[in-house]
């Protein structure tokens, strides 16, 4: 016996190929949507990995530092260092802002870190670590940063001395790492006009500018312009201590919140990315329905176009089963072409996306299963129409 479906596909291959191509592009979009979500999850994990921390200590009652803003005094880390099980603790700041490079604005997350401590980017793909205490930066290359680039952050210029990869915020903005002091200044720095008017206001306040107390005005002004805040303290737990226990201890003694790695991941994925995931889930559902409708429509029209031949096939003794198999195989063939085109398309255009698109092999396997299932379901309409054909219809009326 020959394969009726195979012969039909071979005979009208251009129709199949074009339909499969259209379907494939749609499937490619679907895969990419899934890949965008996977990429976001993976970015979040990489973000946590790169920080090199076991615990994130943030302001009490906040989900900081990534999902909510958090502010801690910059001496909190000293107290934390004294807690048993804490190997290292270091201040970090995070601020998403527009930085200028070569006259153009780039949206970036500026990270302030203490060199040699948690929070420093672990792997550089080019250049060196920050060695000077001011005005050097390590930047992610996604935004097109290169070694030697000069980045303007607020009032100062920074030289890019090192490059990282896949260090982006949960919003997808590339990170720029600068020394903590610079970052604190950038985050809380007032501009010159504000400083001048603040000084004038302070000097004009008799309570603060007492003639009999020399040095008071200077001390007040110094405290006003310097900044003593950070967004989080990253903690590395000593070997042999359970992060959860240490976190509990920090929460109890320091009136701060401490999150473990697992909790942080949950905050990033379940809270921060949750809406994006729902959005993407909605897209996936619609794309699946649209693909199903297309396959159903195409297979149905192709079958209706062959009603007379199907009546003849039945009259000359073809099993209903054989006819149903023919239609089903055609639908599966279409799905197969669509899947292949979709997989190739997603792989080709994935890297062109601004954010990381992660095409998981396992997603492709599940996607293949769904495509085939959709094709089976979509062919039932056509199969019903074909099975309803009366063989008597082949004999002219």
């Amino acid at each position, binding site marked *: *016996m*020959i394969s*009726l479906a195979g*012969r*039909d596909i*071979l*005979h*009208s291959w251009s129709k199949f190929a074009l339909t499969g191509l259209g379907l494939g592009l749609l499937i490619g979009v679907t895969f990419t949507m899934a890949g965008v979500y996977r990429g976001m999850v993976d970015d979040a994990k990489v973000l946590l990995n790169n920080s090199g921390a076991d615990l994130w200590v943030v302001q009490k009652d906040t989900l900081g530092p990534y999902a909510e803003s958090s502010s801690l005094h910059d001496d909190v880390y000293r107290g934390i260092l004294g807690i048993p099980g804490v190997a290292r603790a270091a201040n970090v700041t995070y601020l998403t802002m527009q930085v200028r490079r070569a006259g153009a604005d780039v949206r970036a997350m500026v990270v302030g870190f203490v060199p040699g401590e948690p929070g420093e980017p672990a792997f550089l793909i080019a250049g060196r670590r920050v060695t000077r205490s001011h005005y050097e930066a390590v930047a992610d290359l996604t935004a097109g940063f290169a070694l030697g680039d000069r980045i303007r952050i607020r009032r100062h210029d920074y030289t890019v001395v090192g490059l990282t990869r896949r260090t982006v915020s949960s919003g997808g903005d590339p990170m720029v790492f600068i020394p903590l002091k610079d970052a604190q200044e950038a985050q809380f720095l007032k501009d010159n006009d504000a400083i001048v008017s603040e000084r004038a206001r302070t000097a004009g306040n008799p309570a603060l500018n007492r003639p009999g107390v020399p040095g008071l005005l200077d001390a007040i002004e110094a405290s006003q312009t310097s900044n003593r805040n950070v967004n989080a303290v990253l903690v590395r737990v000593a070997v042999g201590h359970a992060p959860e226990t240490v976190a509990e201890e920090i929460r109890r003694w320091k009136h701060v919140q401490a999150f473990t790695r697992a909790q942080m991941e949950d905050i990033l994925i379940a809270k921060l990315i949750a809406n994006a995931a729902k959005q993407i889930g909605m897209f996936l559902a619609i794309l699946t329905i649209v693909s199903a409708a297309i396959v159903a429509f195409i297979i149905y029209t192709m079958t209706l176009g*062959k009603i*007379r*031949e199907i009546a*003849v*096939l*039945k*009259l*000359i*003794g*073809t*099993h209903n089963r*054989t006819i149903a198999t023919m239609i089903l195989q055609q639908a599966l063939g279409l799905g197969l072409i669509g899947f292949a085109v979709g997989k190739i398309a997603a792989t080709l255009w994935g890297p062109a996306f601004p954010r990381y698109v992660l095409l998981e092999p396992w997603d492709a396997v599940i996607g293949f299963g769904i495509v085939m299932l959709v094709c089976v379901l979509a062919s039932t309409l056509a199969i019903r129409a074909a099975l309803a054909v*009366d*063989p*008597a219809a*082949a*004999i*002219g*009326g």
Partner: protein
Amino acid sequence: MGLGAGIHLEGVSKRYGAGDTAVDALKDVNMSVAPGEVVGLIGPSGSGKTTLLKCLGAVIEPTRGRMTLGGEVIYDNGWQIDDRRVLRRDRIGFIFQAPYLIPFLDAIDNVALLPMLAGRPNAEARARARELLEALDVAHRAQAFPSELSGGEQQRVSIARALANRPPVILADEPTAPLDSERGLAVMRILHQLAGQYQTAIIVVTHDEKIIPTFKRIYAIRDGRTVEEAGEGRGLSA
């Protein structure tokens, strides 16, 4: 010959519908076609020709009567066979007004499909198909798809298909309708020759004036009743 082979109908009636709207399309039809014989079935539109073919082709059920095909009683006030699909496949060849070839199969596989459906190996089915295409003078077009064949070639391929499982009976429904009189006569010559060669009993439904003289025997049907007439049996010598 006798009752052994060929086609025999005794008192076959067919009523469509019931009550006030019932139509008696066939009324006590009696008919016999011997193996190797080609008979014509003529009659005005609505007289019951197609209904008779459909009953014989086992796609609609008569209301009563008795039908014998190739020596076996297939209907006796009820179907006498289990699988009418297999009956149609193995024992009846169909030729239609239009060729109705399967568009995505080439000529040889359109013919070979029938033996394949009957479980014959592909090679054997194709060998038989080629033999038939040769007999019908279209073997040189074996690899062509229906859309690449002329009307006459398509009709010859469809005749080859009707013969593919060597059925004892062929039912042809106005097989010359789409052809000019020259080709129509050629098809009739082929049918007469094949009937003799394979001992097939053939019924040709027609109202084509040009081919009516080719039958030796004709059944005229009017209002569901058949009348046997002697035909002229000429015009077949090339």
